[in-house]
């Protein structure tokens, strides 16, 4: 019986599979509809709460809405509505003065959009999300439009899944639903008595027959086993280092999440803008320019490794010349053009000086002492209660060895910290808290003996040369000139270059794209990258062409331009005017029905010529995606697309900021400028002439960054018809 069944499942099975499959699909559809419904209701609730809040606030702030009541005028001026009312026998004359109400114009249509203040990269849409409805007449007139649109998406429209669609969840449900049927089929049922019935091979055969592309019955069965028993799967992620199940893992694994998700450019994890893999070359491999934490020769506490025999002498002997050298260097050079900021320098100073260091160490030593003593006592009681004890603590009664018991979390943390502090065990111990300096030292020795000795090649940073900087400067000034001369019609997106070991020459991606190398590139400044932008040294506001940054249509980089104050965190301390996009120093804009068309955006305060108004934010999409979306927008006669560079387009349709409401004008009061802002191209809207408070803002859509205007032509025509 079995072989015949394996060959060909009965028609019953076929029927059952088909029936159950359809049932599950329908179930799923209903469930999905319910989910959508509830999500919609939730959103609606949110919105109505918002409206309620608004109402409440307006009530609470006692805003007065005064309707002007025309004064009673003498004589015939006031119109009066008169009505004769028959009230039984009496005939009353009622009259009421007519009041003038001003005409209230209907608000323009607005489609919901989400506010953002930074660009937001989204992926290309591979399926058409919805078939746009533009009124019957458009569809009647141009029936082929929708077809073309669907063709653009390779015929994929959201929600129309292929008939053979099956995913893990449906698969499991299907198998479970088919289990009762195998009893009807007879034969195998008696084997499953007692336990929850297991699906027989027949089930998988039937499914495999129905969905041949899902694999053989055996594969399906294995997959099913995997799916219903999640414990069988290896854990996907490293256990939480703070959790109870922390394990001792190599540093790479410990740092894996942080390393892959951190955005070097936004300083965020899994940022919204830099979604492409190429944006994240990972931590740079080159030797850091930042100096290591100097090793203190003073013991940090009673348990410092320096108390161990001979250690201190060794350290002192090793450090003596370098310290002198450092002191020497500090005395000699005031470091006017240092890479490090002021506060960084001061932190170095505090690290160099001994006294604050020791007091702080004493403080943390106290915390450490608390932890270790508690740890010890707890261990002792623990071992006392559980007489069996763990292998490590039970065997060795020596307290020092007992303390040496390193948990997985401790080990992982040590490995994470060790490359940072190197042999400064005091600092490592302090960061770890739970281990003393001596314990860390001992563990480090152990690790070093276990692992192949890590090479801490310290290529001594050469003493800085002022000449080099100056030379670099002149080279770049020439380069800027060069770039300006060549037609700047092609602006390519910046992607950090990553070519270890090679200088930034013609093969470098940045050079190829005519971009400067940024601090995010893997090439190091110390490797004398010729393609770096040196930043400006302006003392003024960086808003003239005297400023090389301004000239290169870049905003001042807080890490490069030090003298203009671009690095201050407090916005009011910044004297540089060339940081407005990155700091979001936009003007206050107000939205009102436009004098021209639809909604418009108005300036709350005045603006000087060339003053920054706002950044044009939106979704960053590829040119291809923009082509596809633009087709729909063109039909709607409303487009918020804005060319960013040759690779990307900003689309403010779904996400954007208020400047998206600025209308087009051939005699605008604003202009748009695509600037390189810390490695990103961003669109700044600036005042073309002095603008009064309350003026509507316009810019000429045609003067895009690359002066190619693909999608806004229709809007322009609409306005001036």
């Amino acid at each position: 019986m079995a072989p015949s069944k394996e060959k060909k499942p009965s028609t019953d099975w076929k029927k059952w599979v088909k029936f159950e499959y359809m049932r599950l699909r329908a179930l799923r559809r209903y469930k999905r509809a319910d989910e959508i419904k509830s999500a919609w209701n939730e959103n609606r609730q949110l919105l109505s709460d918002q409206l309620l809040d608004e109402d409440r606030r307006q009530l609470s702030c006692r805003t007065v809405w005064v309707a002007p009541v025309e004064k009673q005028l003498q004589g015939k001026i006031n119109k009066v509505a008169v009505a004769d009312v028959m009230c039984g026998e009496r005939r009353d004359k009622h009259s009421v003065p007519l009041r003038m109400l001003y005409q209230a114009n209907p608000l323009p249509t607005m489609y919901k959009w989400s506010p953002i203040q930074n660009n937001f990269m989204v992926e290309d849409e591979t399926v058409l999300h919805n078939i746009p409805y533009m009124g019957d007449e458009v569809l009647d007139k141009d029936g082929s439009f929708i077809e073309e649109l669907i063709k653009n998406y390779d015929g994929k429209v959201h929600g129309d899944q292929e008939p053979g669609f099956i995913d893990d969840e449906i698969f499991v449900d299907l198998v479970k639903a088919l289990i009762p049927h195998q009893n009807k089929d007879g034969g195998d049922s008696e084997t499953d008595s007692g336990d929850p019935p297991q699906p027989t091979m027949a089930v998988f055969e039937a499914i495999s027959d129905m969905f041949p592309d899902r694999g053989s019955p055996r594969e399906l069965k294995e997959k099913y086993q995997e799916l219903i028993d999640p414990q069988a799967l290896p854990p996907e992620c490293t256990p939480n280092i703070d959790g109870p199940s922390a394990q001792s893992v190599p540093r790479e694994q410990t740092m894996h999440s942080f390393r892959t998700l951190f955005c070097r450019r936004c300083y965020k994890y899994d940022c919204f803008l830099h979604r492409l893999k190429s944006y994240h070359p990972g931590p740079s491999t080159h030797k850091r320019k930042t100096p290591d934490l100097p090793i203190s020769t003073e013991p940090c506490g009673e348990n410092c490794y320096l108390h161990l025999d001979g250690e201190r002498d060794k350290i002192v002997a090793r450090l003596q010349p370098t310290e002198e050298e450092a002191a020497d260097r500090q005395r000699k050079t005031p470091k006017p053009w240092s890479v490090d900021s002021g506060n960084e320098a001061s932190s170095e100073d505090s690290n160099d000086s001994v006294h604050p260091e020791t007091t702080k160490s004493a403080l943390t030593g106290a915390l450490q002492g608390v932890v270790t003593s508690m740890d010890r006592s707890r261990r002792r009681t623990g071992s006392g209660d559980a007489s069996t004890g763990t292998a490590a603590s039970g065997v060795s009664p020596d307290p020092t060895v007992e303390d040496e018991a390193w948990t997985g979390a401790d080990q992982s943390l040590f490995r994470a910290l060790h490359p940072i502090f190197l042999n400064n065990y005091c600092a490592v111990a302090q960061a770890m808290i739970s281990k003393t300096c001596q314990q860390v030292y001992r563990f480090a020795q152990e690790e070093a003996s276990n692992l192949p000795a890590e090479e801490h090649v310290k290529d001594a940073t050469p003493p800085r040369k002022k000449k080099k900087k100056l030379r670099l400067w002149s080279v770049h000034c020439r380069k800027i000139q060069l770039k300006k001369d060549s037609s700047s019609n092609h602006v390519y997106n910046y992607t950090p270059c990553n070519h270890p070991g090679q200088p930034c020459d013609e093969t470098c991606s940045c050079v190829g794209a005519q971009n400067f190398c940024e601090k995010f590139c893997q090439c190091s400044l110390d490797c004398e990258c010729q393609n770096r932008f040196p930043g400006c040294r302006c003392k003024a506001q960086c808003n003239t062409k005297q400023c090389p940054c301004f000239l290169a249509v870049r905003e001042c980089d807080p890490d490069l331009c030090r003298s203009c104050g671009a690095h201050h965190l407090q916005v009011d301390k910044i004297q540089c005017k060339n940081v407005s996009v990155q700091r979001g120093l936009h003007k206050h804009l107000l939205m009102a029905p436009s004098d021209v068309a639809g909604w418009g955006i108005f300036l709350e305060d005045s603006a000087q010529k060339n003053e920054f108004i706002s950044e044009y934010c939106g979704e960053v999409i590829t040119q291809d995606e923009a082509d596809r979306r633009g087709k729909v927008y063109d039909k709607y006669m409303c487009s918020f697309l804005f060319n960013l560079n040759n690779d990307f387009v900003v689309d403010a349709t779904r996400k954007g900021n208020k400047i998206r409401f600025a209308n087009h004008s051939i005699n605008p009061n604003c202009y748009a400028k695509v600037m390189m802002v810390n490695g990103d191209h961003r669109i700044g809207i600036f005042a073309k002439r002095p603008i009064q408070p309350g003026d509507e803002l316009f810019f000429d859509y045609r003067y895009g960054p690359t002066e190619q205007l693909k999608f806004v032509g229709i809007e322009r025509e609409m306005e001036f018809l």
Partner: protein
Amino acid sequence: MAPKKREREDENSRTSTDLVKQDHDHEMFLQAFEKPTQIYRYLRARSLVSPLFLHRNLLYMRRASARRVKPKVTRVNALLAMAEKKQSDLTNCTPGQYLTISHIGYYVSKDDSPPSSVRVEVSLKKLCHKRRKEGAAPAVTTSFGWTEVVVNPSDASAPPTVPTSCVPAESFSTQNGSGPKTFVLVVRVSPQQGNRENEEPNNKRRKVSRSSSAASSEPLRAELPVTDRAGRCLLTDGEYDVLLTAEPASQPSAAASATPGRPGANSPRKTSWESFDDGKPVPVPLDAFSTAPTLKLRLAWTNQPPQPTVERPRPLQPRDTNQPASAVAKRCGRGTVKKEESSSSANSRESWSVDKDRPPAGAGSPPTPPLILYQFIYGPAARQQTEARQDLLCPWCCLDCGKLYPLLKHLQLCHARFTFCYTPFARGARIDVSLNESYDSSYAGNPLDLTRPPGARCGPGRRTPSTSVLVCRPRRQKPSLAEFQQTETEERMRPFVTGHNRMYHRTATNLAIPPAELGYDSEGEHDHPWLRTKTRRMIYEFSDVNEGEKALMVMWNLHVMKYNFVGDLQMPQALAMFIEQHGATIVNRNLYRNFVLHLASLYDFGVISPGHIHRAIQQFQELVEGDGDLTSTLVNNLLGAAS
């Protein structure tokens, strides 16, 4: 004020279709001008009731009325003198102390076989206006004697002297007695033998036709208002033809005209915009002067009482350009002639009307106001309607501007629905009035009034500042009429006051923003709630990131989004702030080691140096050590992981 007279000139040469078309055009013209005119009428009435500003305070108006700049200083000692002076001031600027009436002749139609002379009684009727209507206004009539007047004197047969009557100006005084008064000069004509007293009213008699002669024993009468309600003297020097009617004249139909063929009439109302085609009859038919009995009088204000008879004055020359003021033009003040004519004949018509309305050039009279012609231009065809005025009153506001410049300025500024173009010509000014196509009738007041329904007021609240104080001292141009001359090329002046005169809406809800919150940029934050939710969701969606990492990453992301850090250099500070704000949370949620890993990650990316990590850890531990609870929590967490 006289109503506008319009003389329709239908040229016979026109075909009927032309006429129809013209009528249609005319209708369009009237419709186009009707609405703004109504609006300005309404505004005038409103500004009388509740003025928004006073015209006399306007700079250009002040220049016009510079003659009354002297403030009155009142002294106690002078009060009596002032009162007496006022008393004797001949009340309302009567030009002289005595009103001398020379009776030149009584004219009736010849076929009535009139007697050689009639008795003419001159009396003054004082009408006291009462506030409330209580029947007829009380009238007091004072007679100033009878005189005999020759009937139908011809140039040849006229006696050399004419009798005079004299009315002293004191009798026009309004000071004694209560209430305002108007004075009406009543002239009664009765046949010689009839000696009726005028006290007895004659109401029961049938009204006779106007052509009834003086031979019938009916006394005839005419009334001449001396002053109008405002106390201005209407009777000026001149020769008057007084139309006489039967005694109980219901309406004082006296019409005086110094020039034949030039009708003057009392207007019941002020200037009104009336359709030319409605066939409204002229109140006093001109032919009445030729048929009805008239009395020719000459009025003169003198400072001495006249002789009972004076030498017969020479008849006035009607077409003389130096002729004294026509009584009608002077009395009616705003007497206008409005005519509609084809553009071809416009010039001749204008000159005609100019001649008619030529103001007197009498010595000692105030500076002569120029003649002002209003041409209403509408449509492509040069369809005009000309309104000639001899004063400087605004046709819509009746505001006396005094001079031409203020008038033009006023028209331009206060009646912006029209455009005015000034063209000087020999004896006056022509003002072309056309509709202002570019008039922006947008509401310039508080924009909130437009959207919100009237609600109850509950206490003070902030409103949109819809008034602006403008401190601007531009170099004033010397007022020159040239600025009104060309309107075509004139570019619209940018408004001085710019600002928020519109209703702003929230971008999220489209609700109106109340004025109190206008200054707050609600959508300016970098971490909009939806973005915060979004980043949280995105992090939590990862399946290969553990809980501790997720929690810390979300915390850090929100921190960075909130403060918008832009450079590597700001990271140490960002860390310091993070520890300060979230240190306790890190301890309580058991994330210390993840935090250290985060620091290590920052180091790996080259954002911060080991020194910064060291400092951050120190700061963190100081924070924890400062708080006993945190310390114990941290210790438990660290050891909890170990045990």
